[in-house]
Every structure is written in C-alpha cells, then in structure tokens.
C-alpha cells in the first residue's frame, strides 16, 4: 500500500514534483507558499532523481528560467503567491505565445497590492482571463485538497506537454497551509536527455542535429499575417482544450433545486453548507469546477432545467460568477456571495447568505 503522510498542501506540491519526474524547479520565496521550495531543498532531489532546484533572484527571473528550461523540452515548474504571479504574467504570456509547457502554482493570498498573507481567490480573473498581454489562455486547475495538490502536479505536466501550453494550479493559502492525509503515488521516472531528444527534439532546443534545421523558440513575428496565423493556431488549441479537458465534481446535484458553484477551498466549505441545507430539507447541490479554464459550462447548463437558482461562492468580489452567468445565460437567477482580503466564510455564513438571497 502506498505510504500515507500528513502534509501541508505546499509540501505535497514539492513531493509530487519529485515523484512526477520534474526536471527543474525555479522559484522565489513568498508567503504563503514558501514551503514548496523549502521542502524541495530539504529533500535534495538532485541527489536522487537529478532534478534541478534553484532559488532565483526574483519571480521575473524564475518564470524566465522556466522559459529556458521549457525550451529544452524539460518538465519545469515554479510556485508563487499573488504578487509574485503578477510579476510572472509577462513570462507566462511569452510561454503561451511560444507554445511552451510548464507548471505555475499560485497559492493565492488576498490582494490587491501587497495585500495580506491570508488566503483568497481574487486571482481568478488573472489566471483564467489572461493575466499577461495578448490573446492567450492557460489551463487552470483548482485543487480542493492536499491530495489534489499532489495529484494535479502530475496531471498538469501531462496536460502541459499534451498541448504545449503553460498550466496553472490555482490554489490558495488555506489549501497550501492546511495539512491532510496524502497518498504518494508510484514515482514516475525523469526522462533521459536521449528520450527528450527523441520525443521533443523536433521542436526543443537540445542542440541542432545535422539532419534538421535549427530549432528556434520565439513568440515574435513582425509580419501581421504570420502573427495572426499563430493566433489562429492558439485559438484552435484552446478550442480542443475546451472540448476535451473540462473537469468538475458534483455533490448532491441529482435532485438539486438550487446550486452552489465554488472551487478550491470555497468548495470545501460549501460541501458543509450543502449538508446544512439538506438537514433543513432544502435541495441544494454543489458543482465544483476543477478546471477553471476550460470552465465547466455544459455541466452547469445540463442542470438548469431542474434549478430555481444558482449562487457562486468565492473568496473575492465576484469573479467566477461572470463565467457562471455566461453559462446560465439568464435562464435562472444567479447570485453571488464572497468575502475578500483574506477573510473566509464559514459554512453557516454561506448558508445564511444563500437563504437570504433566495428568500428561503
């Protein structure tokens, strides 16, 4: 049986990186995610798997180290929290443009500005709607448990290489700092340089081989028609991602008359709210988007005929609710409840807000 450990979400990310065969981690300390790099440094994976771990001089540098590493066809990742992710957005845009695979973990803290070190979900727009410049998307996964923090590292690398795109794990300080049972999966071996050359040698910068032209990785094209063609290719890719990669979880939706939509730590709290409502005889269900991009539009639409109302519950001023509204498209009332600046709601508080908004 696999070993079960009690770990913080942040520690799970680090352990998963090593066990899913990551080649490189480049990061910069910031609360509340510093345990990721601390754990990696303590584990010394360079002695075992050969994984490179480097503390960079800034988040700007970290993301550009990812750019370099990803150019090489290597599995590279970083983690940070909100202000650091803002600095990385330029690099993420470049990587999306240059079609490079990588994993960026955002353990969100409340903003704006330096904000607070307490958890939040106020970087939803940044993660899902772009963050950096240009028409691009990254796949966004929202873990709701320490086990998912671990598992999504492997999933992220798979998706990143399948679509040659940056993938973001959008977590928050609560999931990052919380300890839960985590089951370590069977380790995946790192690819050798030869295997990388064989698998990705047609695009990665691994040294120009005599039989091919030099590989050039760039997000630059000064010709408008060429740049438009690149954009069309990217949009085609995002369409495929929307078709194939939607992930979500439902709780008591079969007979639900009302629906909560919440992700990450909010969804955990809402699970309890659903229990409270059910105890009072209210048919409330929960839909938890696991992928925030691609957003589970259709699963929400499929539930609409039985629903009297939907409430989006978020640790922000109302961000995902816009996507919920797009999915619902005016067919039933959509309400929102949120807290900001690092404050968290309790299950009871969400239930009270829900009851008030729908006059129950």
């Amino acid at each position, binding site marked *: 049986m696999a070993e079960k450990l009690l770990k913080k979400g942040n520690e799970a990310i680090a352990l998963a990186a090593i066990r899913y065969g990551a080649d*490189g981690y480049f990061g910069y300390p910031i609360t509340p995610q510093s345990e990721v790099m601390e754990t990696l440094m303590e584990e010394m994976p360079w002695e075992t798997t050969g994984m*490179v771990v480097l503390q*960079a001089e800034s988040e*700007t540098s970290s993301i550009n180290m990812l*750019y370099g590493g990803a150019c*090489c066809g290597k599995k590279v990742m970083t983690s940070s929290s909100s202000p650091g992710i803002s600095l990385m957005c330029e690099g993420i845009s470049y990587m999306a443009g240059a079609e490079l695979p990588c994993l960026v973990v955002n353990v969100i803290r409340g903003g704006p500005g330096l904000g607070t070190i307490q958890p939040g979900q106020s970087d939803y727009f940044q993660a899902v709607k772009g963050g950096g410049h240009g028409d691009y998307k990254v796949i966004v996964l929202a873990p709701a448990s320490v086990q998912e923090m671990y598992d999504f590292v492997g999933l992220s690398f798979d998706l990143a290489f399948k679509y040659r795109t940056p993938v973001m794990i959008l977590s928050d300080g609560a999931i990052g700092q919380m300890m839960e049972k985590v089951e370590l999966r069977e380790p995946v071996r790192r690819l050798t340089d030869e295997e990388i050359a064989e698998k990705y040698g047609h695009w990665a910068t691994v040294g*120009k081989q005599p039989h091919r032209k030099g590989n050039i990785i760039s997000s630059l094209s000064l010709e408008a028609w060429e740049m438009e063609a690149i954009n069309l290719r990217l949009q085609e890719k995002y369409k495929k991602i929307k078709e194939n990669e939607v992930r979500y979880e439902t709780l008591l939706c079969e007979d639900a008359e009302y629906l909560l939509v919440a992700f990450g730590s909010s969804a955990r709290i809402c699970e309890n709210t659903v229990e409270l409502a059910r105890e009072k005889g209210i048919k409330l269900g929960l839909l938890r988007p696991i992928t925030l991009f691609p957003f589970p539009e259709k699963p929400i639409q499929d539930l609409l005929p039985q629903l009297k109302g939907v409430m989006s519950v978020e640790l922000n001023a109302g961000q995902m609710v816009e996507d919920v509204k797009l999915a619902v498209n005016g067919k039933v009332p959509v309400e929102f409840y949120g807290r900001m600046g690092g404050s968290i709601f309790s299950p009871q508080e969400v239930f009270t807000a829900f009851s008030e908004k729908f006059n129950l």
Partner: protein
Amino acid sequence: MDVKDIINPENFVYGKSKVLTDTVMHYCPGCSHGVVHKLLAEVIEEMDIQDKTIGVSPVGCAVFAYKYIDIDWQQAAHGRAPALATATKRLYPDKYVVAYQGDGDLASIGTAEIIHACNRGENIVVIFINNAIYGMTGGQMAPTTLIDMKTATTPYGRSVELNGHPLKITELIAQLEGTCFVTRQAVHTPAGARRTKRAIRKAFENSAQKKGTSLIEVVSTCNSNWKMSPVQANEWMVENMFPFYPLGDLKDR
C-alpha cells in the same frame, strides 16, 4: 588564367562559416553585430560544437540572431536571457549556452538577471554588445550612453543631473566571484576582430571547464542612430567610447 583555375583548395584563404545561414542580415551597413555574429559562428564551427550549442537571443537589434547563426535558439523576453541561459545550462550541463545581449537588454532592464547569473557563476558565455544606444527602438538613451551624447530621449545630450551616469556594468560584473573571464573588446579593425574571436573561444573553453561565467563586452558602433557614416562612427567610438570603456581583460582566471 581563368577564374576557375583560381577557385581551388590550394588557394583557399577565407570562407563563410558553415554555422552562418544564407539569410541576408538586417543589420545596418557598418554595424558591429554582423562581425560579432560571424566570429561566434566561426568559433562554434572550429570547436565543432554546433550540435551542442544553444543560443539565447535578446530583445534589441540582435533579436533575430537566430536567423543568422545556425544553431538551436531561444528568443528571450527583454533582459531575461541570463535567466533562460541559467536554466538551460543547469538542465544540460554538458551543452554550451551563449546569451547574446545589447546594452539596454543587459545593463538596464536585465541588470538583476545578469548580475545574479554571473554571481552564481553559471557556466555560460555572455556576449554583450555595447553601442551606448537603443538601436531597435530608434536611438533612445541607453544606460551606457556617454555624458553629452545626443539620443532620441536626450536630444540636448545626456546630463548627469537628469539621467545619471553611464553605467560601467562590465567593471561591476568583473567584481563578482562567479565570473572567471571578463573582457572588453572591439571589432572595428581586423586585429580587434581577431582578439574578440580569441576571447569568444576562451569563453566557450571556460564553459567546458566549468570555470564560471565568461562575459565579453564588445564596444560597438550604431552609425544609424549615432547619425554618422560607418567610418565616422568607428572614429567617434575610438575617440569617445574607448577612453570611458577601455579595451582589455578586466579579469581572467
């Protein structure tokens, strides 16, 4: 004698490096980039490391370096080439990694990246073209622009009061423990080009020996933005740039 009689191996004195592509360079006539590209290609060819060399091109005039030198290239965001090079070299310790940067890229927006890459002693080669101006964006002030020098953003000349002092970043870098070879060269004469080529070769050899970071500054001209003829620009460089940016090795160990 027919021309065909002359074209034979015994008479061969000079040829274009096989590591240079046939693409016509976009650089202005008289620009140093072309010469430095040629020297870099020759070193890669002579060391027979075309299949082991990964280049990182900057934002600036040399953004398209990847079109001219036939190796695998990464095109970096402005100033970040040393970060890309760091990861690449750490992930492929047996390959050669060369970052090619201009003065705005290396000494302004990318100051943190170059200082820290050099301070960590990354086993990479950095080629730093210093022509004291932003070329690609149309001749604005660079961190290395000399006092009183006119640029698009210092139309009355660079003033210390307004713009501060020209940055001798190479001197700064030479102080860092992580660097093993820091030199300042120029390619305005055949002798200068030969010395620069020797420096590039030494930098690659240092990289193989894992001695630390090697940086070659090439004091260069930008005749278009300096608004001079190539010949005038070379003369102006010798008279004005060299006294402030003196040529020679700053560090070699």
